[in-house]
């Protein structure tokens, strides 16, 4: 027998001045199920809550409705309140008569009172159908996976490891280090990128709690918070990493040549290679696309094998195959970083065809002492030192029509940094920077930018560049100085474009594998833009670094630390509490059609075989089964289910229909 207590809150005059609260209490007093009804000035106050608790005891109430503000405000408060006197917290409902009534219908007291009555009746009807629900529990695997071995991934792994938890770093290239290892100097301090990164890489590789899984890809993710099962593809290195000592003989002997992607194709590398000298692990892989042996095998021959002949430890293994391994983790951190926007979509900048129009990352390799030019700034076409350099900002950024609508956040600073580096290396070279705005809101950033102009003599021209074209050996850059209101044309020897940051090309696929959201550009979405910047909507999956949006090194490192704390907080628990408002399948009615399986965004539903006795025989049939730890309670499956077998607890068909009917009864 339902015994509902109804409590109408005045919220001072917030509700009371518009809604006649006493009348609402009176209106529902005889409504089916209602055993007690009253109103009070402040229901959420200490005396208000006591009033509810006393009424529960005195009137033997087994369900409670409070009509006051939004449940987003005080549902938690009142659930706790009724729980204290032994009521199940899910035997409680709220009617929102403030945000949805008194505040939006000022002066319409009669109608507002009628509406409040309707809302209370709806809540009463629903609460009568409510069932007691218990929070669930799930165990926790005390190990984390960090996907991506750039600075964000490394930092995050170190922070987790230093808190005493096991952590794996999954990296798709042969070495950890990421984009930061390609960068020469870092702003605003101009310290050497490798000098601050390499120690972290070494620390990560030698940390007892960290395990590196390089040259490997994320293949599949199953499970749920605390209990992920991750399948990883370990790509065939063709080198036995246990036997290899990293002596490097193979690389000096290899006759195969390939574009050196680490050096932005500014030079060639061998087919057996490590991406850069400080690579970790410092053990090579064979690039099978460019290896002479593997190429010859495609034509039915089997030549070369030089690396194998020279390897002193016999580590070369041409027969290695990709290996799939499945590991268990309690938490996953996505730290997959960014890619550089491809400027070859811009016809007005030459469709990427002019050799001396390069990107910022190209420049980093050009100016790096271990790079293809030993750090001499020369232009790619003829290896001459440029006497005039034009830098163009916002290439691909802030260009909704042809590129990306967002600001890439880092370009203003790296352009300023690169401009000062040119002036340092080649004091006779003139540097012009075309800009729309200079955005330098970091610590010591604006000071740096101002030094670029004032002390380094870099010329900043306010305006976008309309066209770059080859004019003999030079590049003509046609821009506008909008401050002068005049067109300017600069004959340049080299042009450096500040390309936008974009997500990894397969970021959307990654997000789908892990089951997290991504925005229109492919950046992973955080659970709340302000208050949940490193969490995702999928419990147990966190974000670090530029995979969430353009970020510089300090921001990436800070976010990595934040993600690590969230991971540690999760791993520190022995058991996780789970929300009971999840979907449930009535196997008696389920026909096993499987329609609900693909609509579930959390892959929480699987088809399982059950055994049944029917007409004296044991038969087997398929039914849907909801993993209550994975289910987040959206209800997509309940609507998809044709037989009505799937139902969402606390928002069941019966509960919602009760509300609909309650409202409509007022019409009849």
């Amino acid at each position, binding site marked *: 027998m339902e015994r509902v207590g109804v409590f109408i809150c005045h919220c001072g005059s917030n509700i009371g001045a518009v809604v006649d609260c006493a009348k609402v209490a009176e209106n529902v007093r005889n409504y089916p199920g209602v055993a007690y009804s009253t109103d009070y000035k402040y229901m959420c106050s200490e005396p208000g809550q006591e009033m509810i608790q006393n009424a529960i005891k005195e009137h033997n109430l087994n369900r409670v409705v409070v009509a006051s503000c939004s449940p987003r405000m005080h549902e938690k408060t009142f659930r706790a309140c009724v729980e204290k006197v032994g009521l199940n917290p899910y035997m409680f409902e709220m009617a929102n008569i403030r945000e949805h009534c008194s505040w939006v219908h000022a002066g319409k007291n009669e109608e507002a009172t009628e509406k409040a009555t309707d809302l209370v009746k709806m809540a009463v009807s629903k609460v009568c159908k409510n069932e007691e629900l218990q929070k669930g529990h799930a165990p926790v695997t005390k190990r984390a996976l960090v996907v991506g071995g750039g600075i964000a991934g490394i930092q995050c792994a170190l922070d987790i490891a230093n808190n005493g938890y096991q952590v794996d770093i999954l990296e798709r290239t042969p070495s950890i280090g990421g984009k930061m290892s390609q960068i020469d100097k870092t702003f605003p301090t101009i310290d050497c990128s490798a000098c601050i990164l390499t120690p972290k890489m070494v620390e990560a590789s030698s940390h007892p709690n960290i395990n590196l899984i390089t040259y490997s890809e994320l293949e599949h993710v199953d499970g749920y918070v605390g209990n992920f099962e991750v399948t990883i593809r370990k790509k065939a290195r063709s080198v036995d990493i246990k036997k290899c000592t990293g002596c490097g003989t193979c690389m000096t002997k290899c006759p195969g040549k390939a574009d050196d992607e680490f050096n932005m194709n500014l030079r060639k590398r061998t087919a057996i290679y490590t991406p850069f000298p400080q690579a970790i692990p410092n053990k090579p892989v064979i690039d099978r696309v460019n290896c002479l042996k593997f190429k010859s095998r495609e034509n039915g021959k089997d030549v070369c094998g030089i690396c194998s002949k020279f390897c002193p430890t016999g580590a070369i293994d041409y027969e290695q195959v990709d290996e799939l391994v499945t590991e268990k983790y309690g938490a996953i951190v996505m730290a997959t970083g960014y890619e550089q926007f491809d400027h070859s979509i811009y016809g007005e900048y030459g469709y990427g065809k002019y050799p001396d129009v390069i990107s910022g990352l190209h420049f980093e390799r050009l100016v790096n002492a271990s790079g293809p030019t030993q750090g001499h700034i020369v232009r790619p076409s003829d290896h001459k030192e440029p006497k005039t350099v034009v830098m163009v900002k916002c290439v691909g950024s802030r260009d909704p029509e042809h590129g990306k609508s967002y600001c890439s956040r880092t370009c203003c600073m790296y352009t300023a940094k690169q401009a000062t580096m040119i002036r340092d290396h080649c004091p006779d070279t003139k540097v012009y920077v075309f800009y729309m705005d200079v955005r330098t809101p970091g610590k010591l950033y604006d000071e740096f930018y101002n030094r670029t102009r004032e002390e380094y003599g870099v010329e900043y021209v306010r305006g976008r560049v309309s066209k770059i074209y080859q004019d003999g050996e030079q590049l003509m850059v046609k821009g506008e100085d909008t401050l002068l209101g005049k067109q300017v044309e600069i004959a340049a020897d080299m042009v450096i474009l500040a390309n936008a940051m974009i997500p990894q090309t397969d970021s959307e696929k990654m997000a789908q594998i892990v089951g997290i959201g991504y925005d229109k550009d492919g950046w992973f979405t955080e659970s709340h833009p302000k208050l949940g910047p490193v969490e995702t909507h999928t419990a147990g999956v966190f974000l670090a670094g530029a995979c969430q949006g353009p970020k510089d090194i300090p921001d990436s490192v800070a976010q990595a630390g934040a993600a690590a704390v969230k991971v540690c907080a999760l791993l520190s628990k022995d058991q996780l509490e789970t929300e009971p408002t999840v979907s449930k399948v009535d196997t008696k009615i389920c026909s096993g059609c499987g329609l609900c399986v693909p609509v579930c965004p959390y892959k929480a539903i699987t088809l399982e075989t059950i055994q049944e006795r029917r007409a004296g025989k044991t038969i087997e049939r398929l039914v849907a089964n909801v993993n209550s730890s994975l289910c987040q309670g959206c209800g997509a499956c309940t*609507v998809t289910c044709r037989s009505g077998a799937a139902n969402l607890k606390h*928002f069941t068909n019966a509960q919602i229909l009760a509300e609909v009917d309650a409202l409509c009864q007022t019409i009849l």
Partner: protein
Amino acid sequence: MSNNSVENFEPKILVFACNWCTYAGADLAGTSRLQYPPNVRVLRVPCSCRVNPQFVIRAFQRGIDGVLVAGCHPGDCHYTTGNYYTRRRFLLITRMMEYMGIDPKRFHTRWISGAEGPKFQQVVTEMIEEVKAIGPNDKLRDDMKVEVKAVETNE
């Protein structure tokens, strides 16, 4: 029965609002004191994809004058993909209801985010006006029969 007279017709409109976006948007309209006519009643669901078309049809059967299903903007769904299902489902349902003789102006699907208090105000205000103009819902209503019965039994 007062609202069955066309002159002073005050429609009743049911709003299914998803917890994460539209319910929050309606809350924001409240905290911003954005006024709208008191003809709407908001029913909270976790996601717009929880709204079974059956709920909508039941509401019309029981005499509701208009139904609004509102959720997060496509791409912003708290549950990633829920509102895509809503969009597809209700595209079909709208056509079906039109076929059943329910004026399509009585049923809408809208995307209103938690930041769009003014949009909530605007959408419901417009809908109330529209429904007011077309009068009370008299299609599918079981109460027409119920009423007759009631009269019979009363007398």
